[in-house]
């Protein structure tokens, strides 16, 4: 009897468990079929290349495009909502000039005066956006922009020169919150723009400024309607966003997603191709990778993920049939930030020793997938940085005959430390915010300083908010830290890291010598690129040979854009802050 009861009970348990398993399978298998991942792969992520117009924009038309999109044209396919991935949900203040993290999601709502061409493989190709054309006057400081005649705001009103003047002054409004756009304040001051007529605007820079146009073309510098900006509308609300761009804001689910839908009356004929985008907030790395693999998200909103270069390369390798990964070099770096206000780091000999003892090849191999650009002060292989081959001969970067650190560098580093009175076993604490890969980077640095300098190095992981507070209070010794740059031009890079007012200078307390400041000012105004490169070379030589300053770059990190092969006409941007409007991509097969 007992056995019979037990058998019955066991049977019921098995049935119950089978039901649970069946439910699990039902939920998994009964769901919407995974996104087709076997899209026919082409050799290139880009199909037929459309002919680039001289302005980079379609020819202006007098009448806005019809609300009903055609299914295809000779360039691309219309329709579809593209699911995209963001790893951090921004706060809820959506004014186009406030806060930096919102830019990636708002970009499609607004146009800039200029933009980086999203349809060519030249990442530095700048074309007009609202501006149909522009010219620099012979005085070297006056720019005249001619606006598209048919450019219109979402409410149908025309975009005028007065709107541009209003926007330019708003971008450098130091009374308001402008964490990103104030970067052009050295070039442009309020009142320096004026409307010549409804569709012509003149903008004067304070000095000749070769980086003004590249910066203005980034997605941080959007134009907004004067009437809208001055109205009673709460311009910080997502749903109130009104620009002239290809998309309009729709739903916002806090901590979940943001949605954009196509502007049916977009003034650029035939654009955008897609009906909209939905940006999902996925913070967990594993879930993000899973979402790419299953096709639940088709691309990153911008070339920033929370995955390391190595993880990205692994994802690319495992999903080569369905995903393209674009690695954008030289727009961000990872390195050691030094608090130069405290002993012994206020001694240039100590900073030089630390520079010499960094095994950059090891960093590149472990974290940069073996391909990340070398950690020279200025990005390598750019017009203002030195080539990797040349850099690899320089102390601090050169390798020994059998690989690994060059013995001469270690010897010199130890000599400098001895001269500075820093003993063997010196205790150093490396602060590392628990963000990106800072803790892992700090572990490797600690290991290297133990090996090469005999330091007693420890790592202090710390949450991001606490770390930023401690940076501000200069309450740390050294830290593993990275930064992303607006555009890959000299001013944003050097200004941020080495010059007074730059964020890293505020955190590190380093004060550049006068000659360095003079060089910076001279190159910043030099319109002749060859001459400018010469000045920049002197600056880099100073950093390499005299004082590394507050920063020891491990390597220039790639920023990564993951794009499903369904997404067509995507071209790699020059930096993370450009080509974010997504008005020229389409889906094939449909999204």
């Amino acid at each position, binding site marked *: 009897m007992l056995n019979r009861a037990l058998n019955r*009970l066991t049977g019921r348990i098995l049935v119950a468990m089978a039901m649970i398993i069946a439910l699990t399978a039902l939920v998994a298998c009964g769901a919407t079929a995974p996104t087709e991942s076997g899209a026919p792969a082409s050799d290139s992520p880009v199909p037929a290349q459309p002919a680039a117009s001289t302005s980079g924009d379609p020819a202006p038309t007098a009448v806005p495009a019809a609300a009903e999109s055609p299914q295809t044209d000779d360039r691309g396919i219309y329709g579809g909502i593209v699911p995209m991935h963001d790893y*951090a949900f*921004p*706060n*809820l*203040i959506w004014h186009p000039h406030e806060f*930096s993290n919102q830019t990636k999601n708002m970009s499609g709502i607004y146009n800039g005066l200029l933009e980086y061409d999203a349809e060519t493989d030249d990442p530095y190709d700048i074309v007009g956006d609202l501006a149909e054309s522009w010219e620099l006057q012979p005085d070297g400081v006056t720019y005249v922009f001619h606006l598209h005649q048919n450019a219109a705001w979402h409410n149908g009103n025309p975009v005028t020169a007065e709107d541009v003047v209003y926007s330019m002054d708003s971008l450098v409004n130091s009374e308001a919150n402008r964490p990103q756009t104030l970067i052009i304040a050295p070039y442009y001051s309020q009142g320096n723009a004026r409307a010549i007529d409804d569709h012509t605007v003149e903008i004067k820079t304070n000095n000749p400024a070769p980086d003004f146009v590249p910066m203005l073309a980034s997605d941080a510098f959007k134009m907004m309607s004067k009437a809208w900006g001055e109205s009673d509308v709460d311009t910080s609300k997502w749903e109130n966003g009104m620009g002239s761009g290809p998309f309009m804001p729709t739903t916002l689910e806090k901590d979940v997603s943001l949605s954009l839908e196509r502007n049916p009356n977009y003034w650029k004929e035939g654009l955008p191709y897609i009906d909209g985008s939905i940006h999902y907030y996925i913070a967990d790395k594993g879930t993000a990778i899973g979402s790419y693999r299953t096709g639940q998200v088709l691309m990153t909103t911008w070339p920033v993920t929370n995955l390391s270069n190595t993880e990205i390369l692994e994802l690319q390798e495992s999903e080569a049939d369905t995903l393209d990964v674009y690695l954008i070099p030289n727009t961000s770096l990872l390195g050691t930030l030094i608090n130069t206000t405290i002993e012994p780091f206020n001694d240039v000999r100590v900073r030089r020793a630390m520079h010499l003892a960094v095994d950059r090849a090891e960093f590149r191999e472990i974290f940069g997938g073996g391909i990340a650009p070398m950690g020279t002060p200025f990005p390598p292989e750019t017009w203002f940085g030195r080539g990797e081959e040349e850099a690899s001969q320089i102390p601090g970067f050169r390798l020994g005959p059998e690989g690994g650190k060059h013995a001469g560098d270690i010897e010199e580093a130890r000599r400098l430390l001895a001269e500075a009175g820093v003993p063997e076993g010196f205790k150093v604490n490396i602060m590392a915010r628990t*963000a990106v890969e800072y803790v892992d980077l700090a572990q490797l640095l600690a290991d290297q300083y133990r090996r090469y300098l005999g330091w007693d190095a420890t790592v202090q992981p710390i949450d991001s908010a606490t770390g930023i507070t401690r940076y501000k209070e200069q309450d740390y010794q050294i830290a593993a830290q990275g930064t992303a740059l607006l555009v890959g031009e000299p001013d944003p890079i050097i200004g941020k890291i080495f010059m007074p007012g730059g964020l890293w200078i505020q955190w590190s307390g380093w004060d550049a010598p006068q000659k360095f400041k003079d060089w910076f000012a001279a190159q910043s105004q030099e319109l002749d690129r060859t001459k400018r490169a010469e000045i920049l070379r002197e600056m880099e030589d100073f950093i390499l040979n005299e004082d590394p300053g507050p920063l020891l770059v491990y390597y220039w990190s790639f920023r990564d854009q993951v794009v499903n092969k369904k997404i067509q006409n995507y071209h790699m941007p020059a930096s993370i802050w450009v080509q974010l409007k997504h008005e020229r991509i389409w889906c094939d097969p449909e999204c």
Partner: protein
Amino acid sequence: MNTYVLKRFMLFVPTLLLVTLMVFALMRLVPGDPAELLLMGFEGDGQYSQQQLDELRAKLGTDRPLAIQYLSWIWGMLRGDFGVSMYFDTPISEDLGAKLPITLELAALALLLAFVVAMPLGVLSAVRQDTIADYASRIIAIAGVAMPTFWIGILVVYFLVTWFDWLPPLGYADLWNDPWKNLQQMVFPAVALGFYNMALIARVTRSSMLEVFREDYIRTARSKGLREGAVIIRHALKNAFLPILTISGWQVGRLIAGTVVIETIFLVPGMGRLLVDSILHRDYTMIQSIVMVIAFMVLALNLVVDLLYAWLDPRIRYE
């Protein structure tokens, strides 16, 4: 009984007061200024002037003395006003109203799944002591207790992606508007979240059942000629249920704490995920409110469990 319930409710007040003091003090002890974080952005790249910082601190109320901040928060809560999120600038009550049901749904589903699996597993293990079925169920239970919740969550995601090439659909679907999609989104986080509870309940069920099996009344029940199923379910399981209920009560608190990790992994937009984000952003007002809600729920559930004792075992009286 009524006096007991009243006394327990009275005890809520000092306990909750202590919680308010602790959470308020802890958040202020941890470095990180919400105004600075708002201005600097998540990556700390933003730049701002001292004037902007002062203005924002004044707007957020963090420039006031700590005692005033604390009392103003308490006064607000007493009036049912949780205040405004420092980071999102939205009414906290709205956020809690939207997020709490999601977390409760997840926790309830996790507990339900835990019970549905654990009870039969524990009973089977007890009645088939020292057999393969017993060993198997004990291995599952020990593994469940040993593995941290976040690890199980990661394994579930890995399993779904690798074996089924599938993940729960993105974007949250409300239970009442789209129950099928909601189930797809909730069942796997619930499995991950409830796995530990399942294991623990299974272990407790087994040991409790083994104890009860040795009691005289079980022998009597069998000697009366009752069917074995009736003996197990009606006599043994009911008497073995008290310890199970005890651990289930405090496990609810653990379950809600576990949602913090699981909601992040499975993109469930509940209160746990909101808490994580709020901590990262130093959204003091939001953190305080969420912690208070959780504290209240845990206290209330413990009371409910205590009251259930009396219902399950008539010998227990609270007079």
